[in-house]
């Protein structure tokens, strides 16, 4: 999914017992775990449960991660697994209506979840890409991506950059964001999927049942 240059170092340090490195790993990938629980529409208590399980498992597996660069993928997979386990358990507990086509219903739900998960993965890659930029580039993009958006005048005041150069700099920063290892890996994955006939388009509106 993505690579980040200092992730292997963080994993090594955490596996030596460095709580600071662990916290950095948590800060980086916690949004990924949380977003996965949102994709599965989990209730808050279930989301907390999944979150705890993912991190406890990671503590157990820290020394056994064969490829620290695969960490985000491991986290994503573990979170998905835990979420779908809870979702299936929840479904089983619901009274079954024999007139409902539950199989079809579940399939549509899965499609919605899958589309949402692709978005979650893209967002993590963008956050990682942002972290891989030079501080000045990152700062400008963060200001530009604020909600509600800041005016160029405000950004000029905050950065000392002339208003006239913000536009071109913005374009260059976004280009450099596309060139970060994290975003490049993402885009490469997506164009490969498109090339092989890409079985889905995460931007396509998906019918939501129920």
């Amino acid at each position, binding site marked *: 999914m993505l690579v980040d240059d200092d992730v292997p170092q963080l994993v090594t340090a955490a596996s030596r017992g460095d709580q600071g490195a662990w916290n950095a790993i948590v800060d980086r990938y916690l949004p990924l775990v949380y977003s996965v629980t949102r994709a599965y529409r989990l209730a808050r208590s279930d989301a*907390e449960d999944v*979150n705890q399980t993912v991190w*406890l498992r990671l503590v157990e597996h820290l020394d056994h991660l064969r490829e620290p660069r695969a960490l985000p993928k491991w986290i994503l997979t573990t979170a998905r697994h835990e979420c779908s386990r809870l979702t299936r358990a929840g479904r089983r507990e619901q009274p079954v209506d024999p007139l409902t086509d539950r199989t079809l219903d579940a399939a549509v739900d899965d499609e919605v979840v899958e589309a949402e998960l692709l978005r979650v993965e893209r*967002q993590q890659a963008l*956050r990682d890409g942002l972290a891989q930029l030079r501080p000045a580039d990152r700062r400008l993009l*963060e200001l530009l991506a604020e909600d509600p958006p800041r005016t160029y005048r405000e950004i000029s005041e905050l950065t000392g950059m002339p208003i006239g150069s913000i536009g071109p700099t913005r374009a260059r920063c*976004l280009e450099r964001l596309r060139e970060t290892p994290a975003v490049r890996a993402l885009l490469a994955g997506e164009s490969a999927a498109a090339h092989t006939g890409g079985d889905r388009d995460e931007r396509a509106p998906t019918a939501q049942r129920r």
Partner: protein
Amino acid sequence: MSAHPPHNGDDPLLAELAEARSAARAVPESMRVAARAAFAWRSVEEGLELLVLAHDSALGTDAGDVRAAPPDGPRELAFRGAALSVELEVDADVRGRLVPPGPGRVTLAGPLAVLAEAEADALGCFRLPRPGCGQVRLVCRTEDAAVTTGWVRL
């Protein structure tokens, strides 16, 4: 706002970046606290052999599913290790047996606190209260071995 027309894909990319950042801000603080606290288990695990879950009657065909209860009877679990294994029956409470049989000390722990402790008798048998929801693990110490199960819901 600007005299410079942006690259075609720039606006969507920036919009997605904004979404990505706001998704990160939406994470509840309690989850950050729990995730950071999980690291405390690292020191606990040092010197403990991590047992392998060899059997769980609740798993059925789905290796990841521990919520499904068998139709009747207590849930049975077996954790295997090199020097010491642990077998559990979970019903109204947790009855366990150390294998090979022998005395020892068994601790039932949640992610944040020790929930209960018990002594295993000469036959390795022990009894613990059944924990509520959430992940737990059993840490067992005998004269010859110190082991822990992985995280599990009982």
